[in-house]
């Protein structure tokens, strides 16, 4: 080896080594540029996929909310407006056979019932307007949701909100996603928990928002992130977690058999 190196003239050696070094430098620069650009491309694709998923979820949440609204309106028309108008009709049909004093009472009753029906219809009309819904604060939306729940008579529902002024930092899309998570959790209480009481707390702290929905129902085993697939799919927990992740929130579910369930959503306020 030494003999071979000694036989190679210095100039040739210098040219060979210099050329090799320069070429290595060129290869390094080219590879670095390629890698950098590849990483940028991957990052851009990731961001695009995330944006696309977010938009899709927003759309899905809007559709679900509309569907929910239609369902509750249909129920309200049937249970409230329909009942009230039936009463009015009954009053009117009985007027022909009533005495003068009773007639006055029936007219007055019918007027009151019609006023109530008009008020209910106005409320329903407002709820059909999606802009109105999106324009509402999260506190107001959750309050209405809890009122509806209470009116079903299925559970005793209560709602507490503190520090609502912190809500102004939320975009309407973020609000919509949080509201859908809350709706999903409440729907789980009605369908699976067999609870007699459900409490919703919304708390705005300077650095975070905390939404907690707890019930006194039958609860379930295997809580936390390792929930089995059956529970996860059947109750839409996977969907809730995914949506929470999209808005940068963390979702925690604490439950034990016979001890109720608490769903806790924490969203940092930036």
């Amino acid at each position: 080896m030494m003999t071979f190196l000694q036989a190679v003239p210095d100039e040739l050696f210098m040219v060979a080594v210099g050329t090799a070094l320069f070429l290595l430098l060129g290869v390094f620069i080219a590879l670095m540029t390629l890698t950098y650009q590849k990483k940028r491309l991957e990052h851009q694709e990731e961001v695009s996929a995330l944006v696309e998923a977010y938009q899709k979820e927003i759309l899905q949440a809007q559709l679900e909310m509309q569907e929910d609204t239609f369902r509750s309106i249909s129920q309200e028309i049937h249970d409230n407006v329909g009942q009230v108008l039936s009463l009015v009709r009954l009053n009117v049909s009985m007027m022909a056979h009533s005495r003068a004093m009773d007639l006055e009472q029936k007219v007055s009753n019918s007027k009151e019932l019609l006023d109530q029906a008009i008020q209910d219809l106005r409320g329903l009309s407002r709820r059909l307007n999606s802009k109105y819904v999106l324009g509402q604060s999260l506190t107001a939306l959750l309050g209405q949701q809890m009122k509806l729940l209470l009116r079903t008579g299925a559970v005793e529902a209560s709602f507490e909100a503190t520090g609502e002024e912190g809500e102004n930092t939320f975009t309407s899309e973020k609000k919509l996603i949080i509201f859908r998570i809350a709706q999903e959790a409440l729907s789980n209480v009605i369908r699976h928990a067999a609870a007699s009481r459900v409490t919703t707390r919304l708390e705005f702290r300077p650095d975070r928002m905390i939404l907690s929905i707890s019930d006194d129902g039958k609860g379930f085993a295997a809580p936390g992130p390792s929930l089995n697939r059956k529970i996860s799919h059947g109750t839409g927990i996977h969907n809730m977690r995914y949506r929470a992740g999209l808005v940068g929130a963390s979702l925690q579910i604490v439950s034990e058999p016979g001890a109720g369930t608490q769903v806790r959503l924490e969203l940092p306020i930036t």
Partner: protein
Amino acid sequence: MWDVYVYFSLLFLSLACWLSRFRDLSPALKALGVPLLATLVMEGYAAYLMFQMTNTVWLYHFITPVQYTLYAFVFYHGLAGAGIKKTVLVSVPLYLLASLFIILQLQSSSEYNSYARLMKDALIVCCALVYYWEVFTKLQVIRLAREPMFWVSTGLLFYSLGNFFADGLMNQLLEQSYRLAHAVFYINVFLGLLLHATFLVAFWLTREQPAVPPCKTVLP
């Protein structure tokens, strides 16, 4: 001798590819065909003279400035920054003047034109690095391995960096031994093959534009 045939085959193939895809090529790649054509003609003549056992060193005093001028135009079209483009354009007359000065004052036509070649190598390396710089700083994200101009710049970067020592020390090597100089010359041959291979890839990567489908009129 085999190296001459392989080199010219690759050069010819690159030109054929350039010609066949000319319609779809970017302005920079369209411009790249001109130095290839000039190289084919001039180095073809040099090879002919070499086969006639005639010294061809004088010819490269003309080939080198012409090649730099034409490659500079490729970068002029391939680079994005307006200031950079202007600088590349200004470098052409400056380089031609410097080459003229070198041939008149420093290295006569009977000597190997190492200074002019070194300058050409350095300038082309700068152009290629500026291209990389633009890739780093540009907002647009591209799939670089499919970008023809990346291959052109990389080929020219390797060729110019690799030839730097061989070109710079050739006169000294020729003074010592022709055999030694001939051995080093193979670096140039190898890098020339690599250069034309990258050009070939660049032309190959240019996709054919889909033909515009004929308009259909649908009657109601």
